[in-house]
């Protein structure tokens, strides 16, 4: 609790973290509360009000799409999906990647060689075919997208963490711990992992936008979220077909996507400074 408070106190000193974090929290809150409060429903088609521009009538502030569905509610739904995917995918890649990389790096020798060759093999699989195969083999499934993105992202993380671990392993405080009899697992998770935080935070901030982009890309190709569910990527895809006459269908979800990506990038940059204990005076 005390540690959390200390981190919070340091986060507060960073303007970039506060502003971008604030914007993200704001968007998330609206994304969760908005669809509940709004009188409109994401499924409800209305052929009388197809492609109506943003306005305050019926609280359709983002307008409607080509089936007359409320774009605000659908966009917020898309943000929800985007957030869930971003968080779950980067959490999966964080946990698997850090553990895998730290173990391979610390064990070294043959263990390291075998573990990293496995990573190389996975790298060699072409990602898009892999996803299409998954989609074909199983039903199109929300969960599959997490699996696909997580399964790809942890590879980079594992490589980066392993490289850092290789150099940390030779540091004297690790040798001191070995001498004292600290168990290998404890060395990896208490001595090595905390010192990886700088790199890991930076890398996670790269994977979150990356995961969001990958999801959008899949949805844009029609391989991701399926109608009537939606995501920002799917909304952009729909918007592209309506650029003439209903440009808001493209601009609004695209702008949301861009803002979220930018904020995550700024936030990550600031978090790296915050999490580095060496800066604490």
């Amino acid at each position, binding site marked *: 609790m005390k540690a959390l408070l200390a981190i919070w106190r340091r986060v507060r000193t960073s303007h970039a973290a506060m502003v971008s974090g604030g914007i993200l929290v704001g968007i998330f809150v609206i994304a969760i509360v908005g669809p509940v409060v709004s009188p409109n429903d994401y499924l409800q088609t209305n052929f009388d009000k197809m492609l109506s521009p943003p306005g305050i009538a019926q609280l359709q502030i983002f307008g409607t799409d080509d089936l007359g569905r409320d774009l605000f509610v659908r966009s917020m739904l898309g943000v929800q999906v985007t957030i869930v995917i971003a968080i779950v995918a980067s959490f999966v890649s964080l946990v698997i990647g850090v553990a895998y990389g730290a173990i391979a790096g610390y064990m070294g020798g043959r263990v390291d060689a075998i573990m990293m060759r496995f990573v190389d093999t996975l790298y060699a699989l072409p990602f898009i075919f892999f996803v299409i195969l998954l989609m074909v083999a199983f039903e199109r499934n929300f969960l599959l997208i997490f699996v696909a993105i997580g399964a790809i992202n942890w590879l980079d993380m594992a490589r980066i963490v392993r490289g850092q671990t290789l150099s940390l392993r030779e*540091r*004297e*405080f690790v*040798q*001191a*711990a*070995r*001498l*004292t*009899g*600290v*168990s*290998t697992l404890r060395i990896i998770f208490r*001595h090595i992992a*905390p*010192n990886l*935080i700088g790199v890991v935070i930076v890398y996670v901030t790269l994977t979150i936008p990356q995961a969001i982009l990958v999801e959008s890309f899949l949805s844009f190709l029609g391989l991701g979220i399926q109608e009537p569910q939606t995501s920002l990527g799917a909304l952009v895809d729909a918007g592209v077909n309506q650029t003439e006459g209903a440009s808001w269908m493209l601009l609004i979800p695209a702008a949301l996507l861009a803002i979220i990506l930018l904020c995550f990038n700024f936030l990550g940059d600031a978090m790296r400074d915050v999490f580095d*204990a*060496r800066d*604490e*005076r």
Partner: protein
Amino acid sequence: MSLLQVDALTVRYGDVAAVNDLSFSIERGESVGLVGESGSGKTQTAMAILGLLPPTARTNGSIRLGGTELLGASEKNLNALRARKMAIVFQDPMQALNPFVRVGAQLGRILLQHKLADRKRAYAQVLEMLERVGLPDVERQYAAYPHQMSGGMRQRAMIASALITEPELLIADEPTTALDVTVQAQILELLAEIRRDTALLLITHDLGVVAGHCERMLVLEGGALVEQGTTQSVFAHPQHAHTSSLLAAAPRLDRADIPGGAPGDVVLQVENAAVTYAMQGREALHAVRGVDLTVRESETIAVVGESGSGKSSLVRAALGLVPMQAGRVALCGVHLQGLVEERPKATRRSVQLVFQDPAGSLNPQMRVAKIVAEPLRVHKPTLGELQRLESVTAMLEKVGLSAEYLDRYPHQLSGGQAQRVAIARALILKPKVLICDEAVAALDGTVREQILKLLRDAQTESGLSIIFISHDLSVVRAVSHRVMVMYMGATVELADNESLFGNAKHPYTRALLEAVPVPDPEHAGGKATLDGEIPSALNPPSGCAFHPRCPYAQEICSAEAPGERTVDGALVKCHFAGELLERR
């Protein structure tokens, strides 16, 4: 007019004054020593003179070189001055030389850049300069990259690059701190010999270096000048209390103050240890070749030797941090095998290690309380949180740190404090053997004294055995009962303190002793009696490994490795061990 005139120089960073109201002058051709502990503003002064301070620094006062004001001078004017009038030699030549450019080309560039020579003459001039700094086979060195040279050769090349423009002022910032003692002696002699009428400002923490090589000296404390005068008079009659304490803390070879008490039973025994590192695609490197080491209760044994002599590999193998190819280790009669992870837990708490770099040996992400408590967590898991904290606080108090340090992170500690924490962590389980690997090498004189006292107290209190690894013979003189000298992975001499420092039997030991700078201008020591540097362990010389550098070498030395001999109670590996005294 003085060559360099510094008046009321102040260098500030925000509210902190790194240099405060400093005034001094240097005459043409003079050698002046600038001494002080770390943080006393020595390097800041040098950087201010050279105009190399970072933009965040605020300066005041005046620095005149031959009448030209340097503070506030334009970068263009400074560049011209830096090339022709002043030059600097840094501590680490590897950092100062460009790793991608051949050494000769780097030197030539200086001449060409400042239009001091055309291409043809530059080549000849560089070769001549390389020869003057004593580099062998200059044509080859001209074409060498910095990483292909040894540390001593690199520093020679650095000096060559500083002197090639024949500056009027040479600033040397700790030029030999990163070098072995025999190489240090060579470099200092070289500096004195070839600078001709170039004035020298020698920045150092080592009073022995100043005593041997400077006519005058300046003593800095906290950015202010506390004393200046001729070297003789300052050493003989220091006026300021800080100078006296620096002099008192300077280790000397003629003083030993070792706790008495007869050493007890054998605690740690290493027999015939061999350590080999596999080199990719090349022959293996034999770092340690069959070394014995025995430590008794309440005894301090020092292991000395230049870098690359295998002293660190020896103890790391004994500890099980690196694999040992051959030999056996016994702790109180219990045979220890394999790496440290494979050894019984109970034996692991009995041997602890303190490292050279105090900051690097503490996990930067852990607070002091957790660092010191970790051994307890492992070996006394039944201890409650409160009891553990009590033991940690008591241990910290023993090493001279109050409870307020419990919540600090390592980067919030000074070097000395961090080393105290490292010692607290090592001693909290009451080990039988403490290994100090260059544990005081990175510390200032007064702090070093405190740490050494701490170790002595721990020894008298609990009968701790200490293996003290050091390249610094004056520290070894002050702390050890017995001394083992290593050269290229083998023991060359093993004797008790008095006998080794009073009457060394091996020519290598003698050369080491003669090379140690003594803080006394009357007999300054620091003599370079050895040529060259320790050869590569990948390609060791035949016979006695020391013969290529040995002033007494005979034919037999290159043909046959000398066996172990006992002379006056000392173990010596030299064909002429007993006869050396008469030969002098």
